[in-house]
């Protein structure tokens, strides 16, 4: 029975890690995602004491391989890899995985930032529109005629007395 070893990684984001695994050949069909840790299985079908939430079953790795797991920790996922599989899925593979992870993580940050900007812009437009409507209403009640023009993003409301 091949012993399991644990390798620390700096990867913390599940979505980016799954995208990186997919890029290295382990797409969503080959990676189990569990809400709570599940036991890993050895090459002889034996249940091991090690557990993980992200698991690549041995069938997807090689005929004599053991499951590979990832355990989430606050400082980053820990990879649980058997001594046997360490040759192919050890530090060098994890280094490639991390490089891919970084690309996906940065892309995700940019996507989130763009979504945040869109959200803030929508909120700003909502506030400006509410201001505009409130000023129109108040001005008309007070006897002003409102001329509205737009330049770039700025709205100009010129309030003209109906009669002087």
């Amino acid at each position, binding site marked *: 029975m091949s012993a399991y070893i644990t390798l620390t990684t700096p990867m913390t984001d599940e979505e980016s890690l799954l995208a990186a695994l997919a890029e290295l050949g382990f797409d969503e069909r080959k990676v189990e995602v569990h809400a709570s840790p599940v036991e890993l299985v050895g090459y002889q079908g034996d249940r091991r004491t090690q557990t993980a939430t992200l698991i690549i079953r041995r069938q997807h790795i090689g005929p004599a391989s053991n499951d590979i797991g990832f355990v989430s920790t606050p400082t980053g996922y820990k990879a649980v890899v058997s001594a046997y599989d360490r040759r192919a899925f050890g530090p060098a593979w994890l280094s490639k995985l991390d490089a891919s992870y970084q690309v996906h993580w940065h892309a995700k940050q940019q996507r989130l930032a763009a979504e945040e900007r869109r959200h803030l812009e929508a909120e700003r437009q909502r506030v400006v529109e509410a201001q505009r409507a*409130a000023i129109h209403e*108040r001005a008309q009640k007070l006897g002003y005629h409102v001329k509205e023009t737009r330049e770039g993003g*700025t709205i100009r409301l*010129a309030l003209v*007395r109906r009669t002087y």
Partner: protein
Amino acid sequence: MRLNIARVLCRSAANGPGERFVVWVQGCPLACPGCWNPDTWSFAPRSLVEVTALAEEILGTPGIDGVTFTGGEPFMQARALAALARAVRERGLSVLVYTGYERDELVGRAHRALLEVTDVVVSGRYVEAQRSTELPWRGSTNQRIHFMTERYSEADIEGTAAVEVHLETSGRVVLTGFPSADLVQGVLVPDSPASTSAGLHRPRSR
């Protein structure tokens, strides 16, 4: 030659005839009670700009009819403003000056130099007891409009905006002109959405 200014507004229809570039100068000795721009009273340097640079900015603003000097007290910086007025008039723009002084108080050489290149002067202290939002271009009924050239006349007053609100992309609200208290409330009342913005330019009071 430099000017001490409080702020500018590149385009306004509520500070004289047509579309105007508005310059609020910094510093006023009159301190009229009830003035809406007390932040412009101090003579301490606020924003010092070269006359030539400001003239370039004004002349680079498309579609304006002229420039309006207000404040603060423009005649406290009459020499520099006269130079600025000359530069913009040479390119066809008109000049309107708001002053808290009465017309007959403007007798100094620098005062005359500015008056010579001014098309319209609106003169007189802001008198809170005579406050009016019914008069075009003026904050209180004692103030007077003097047409110094033939470029404008009483006919140009009709249809002029009394108040202007700019809702800027930054969220800043600029309010300028002569709003009634009710209208200001509409922009500033805490429950109003407009009050969520920062950087309100309070309206000129004279």
